[in-house]
């Protein structure tokens, strides 16, 4: 980490664990839950958020002294919307099938609370470089949860990872299936995303008692 001072490194590492945007700050839940039935979709979503949040934080941070505070929400929304349109068009051009799977959820990055939350909490008060790091850190924190949820849901739900069968063939009865293992189709249903995130929160807070909430 010669490139980054200790303080800067903290900006990236904190959101990955003890200040995670999803499990601790409770931001950006909607998209995290809806698209995690497949690992691939989770990864693409994470990359899109990384792009939008990293760049958006820089733009907002550069403009922080000229935005009148009364209309800042609209200005922020316009910046995010523009970046999201770019992401959407790129996805439609290069990964059309995937953009169908993500459907409206790419558009919903605009109202992803992580983005507005970080703009409000960080980019409006800090310089561009720090804001950039903060954006990267938070979207990586978001990505970690998305990928964990996507990993378990795809593995247990359809026995595949990134579309590749890793547990054997369920129809030919090879691999694990030969000893009577069955896919748990329930994992693919949307409510399971909520329960998996709930369990992640449980594990995380059991490991770090300081995070436990008052009732």
């Amino acid at each position, binding site marked *: 980490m010669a490139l980054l001072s200790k303080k800067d490194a903290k900006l990236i590492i904190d959101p990955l664990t003890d200040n995670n945007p999803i499990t601790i700050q409770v931001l*950006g839940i909607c998209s995290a839950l809806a698209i995690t039935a497949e690992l691939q979709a989770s990864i693409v979503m994470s990359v899109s958020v990384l792009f939008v949040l990293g760049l958006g934080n820089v733009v907002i941070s550069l403009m922080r002294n000229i935005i009148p505070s009364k209309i800042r929400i609209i200005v922020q929304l*316009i910046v995010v919307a523009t970046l*999201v349109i770019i992401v959407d068009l790129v996805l439609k051009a290069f990964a059309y099938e995937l953009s169908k799977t993500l459907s409206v959820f790419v558009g919903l990055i605009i109202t992803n609370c992580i983005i507005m939350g970080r703009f409000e909490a960080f980019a409006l008060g800090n310089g561009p470089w720090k804001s950039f790091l903060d954006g990267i850190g938070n979207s990586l924190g978001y990505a970690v949860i998305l990928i964990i949820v996507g990993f378990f849901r795809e593995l247990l739900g*359809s026995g595949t990872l990134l579309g590749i069968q890793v547990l054997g063939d369920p129809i030919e009865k090879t691999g694990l299936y030969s000893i009577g293992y069955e896919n748990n*189709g329930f994992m693919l249903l949307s*409510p399971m*995303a909520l*329960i998996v995130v709930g369990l992640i929160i449980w594990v995380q807070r059991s490991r770090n008692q300081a995070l436990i909430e008052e*009732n």
Partner: protein
Amino acid sequence: MEHLELFFKSIFIDNMVFATFLGMCSYLAVSKKVTTAVGLGAAVIFVLAVTVPLNWLLDQYLLQEGALVWLDPKYGVDGSETLDLSFLSFIMFIATIATMVQLVEIVVEKFSPSLYNSLGIFLPLIAVNCAILGGSLFMQSREIPSLGLALTYGIGSGIGWFLAILAIAAIREKIRYSSVPPALRGLGITFIITGLMAIGFMSFGGMLTGGDEDKKEQTTEAASLIKLEPSSESTDKQITTEIAEKEDTNVVAENIKETEN
């Protein structure tokens, strides 16, 4: 009839929170008390009822492919039959929503200070509530055919969101008296309860898929009876036991996917 169908569909089957997870952030943050939950829920119904029809008009007369044909040729828009501005819909929709929220806030403050006091603090929150933008985007992607239906859809999804946040707030008020494992307290248990409620709501999936008119009405009646006491434990159990019996379109769809694999 189609209004009624869309209305119940958007409340129960395509419930904003339980089927598509929209508006989860404020759903989790503002559901600690029933009174505040009611305030935010009412504001969401109101804003959805205003913005969905408005964005429908925008979509129909400005953004869709060939939407600009009503424009007089003298304005010099060439090839207006094939002009497709739909890539602008995100920015247009969010601008409408942000402006409408601001406008609603000003109007309500002026004409009904008491309503403003109860709704006011929630209105700015709503501009960034994904349920609102989601409502407009789903309206666009499901190609709702008329302005009236767009209004019905807006109100219906608003009520669905309202019911969801009301139910979870009531459960969270009661759950304080039970002993939840320390690490699961607060956020964790709320996630898991929401998951269970979502499973319950999946049982509404078969509600409008078939059968004759009489049967349909019976199911909707039964559904409204169940919804009378969203927080009581027994109804929750009832709902969850029903999943096994009721045919659910989602489940069917997922099963098809699975067999394909």
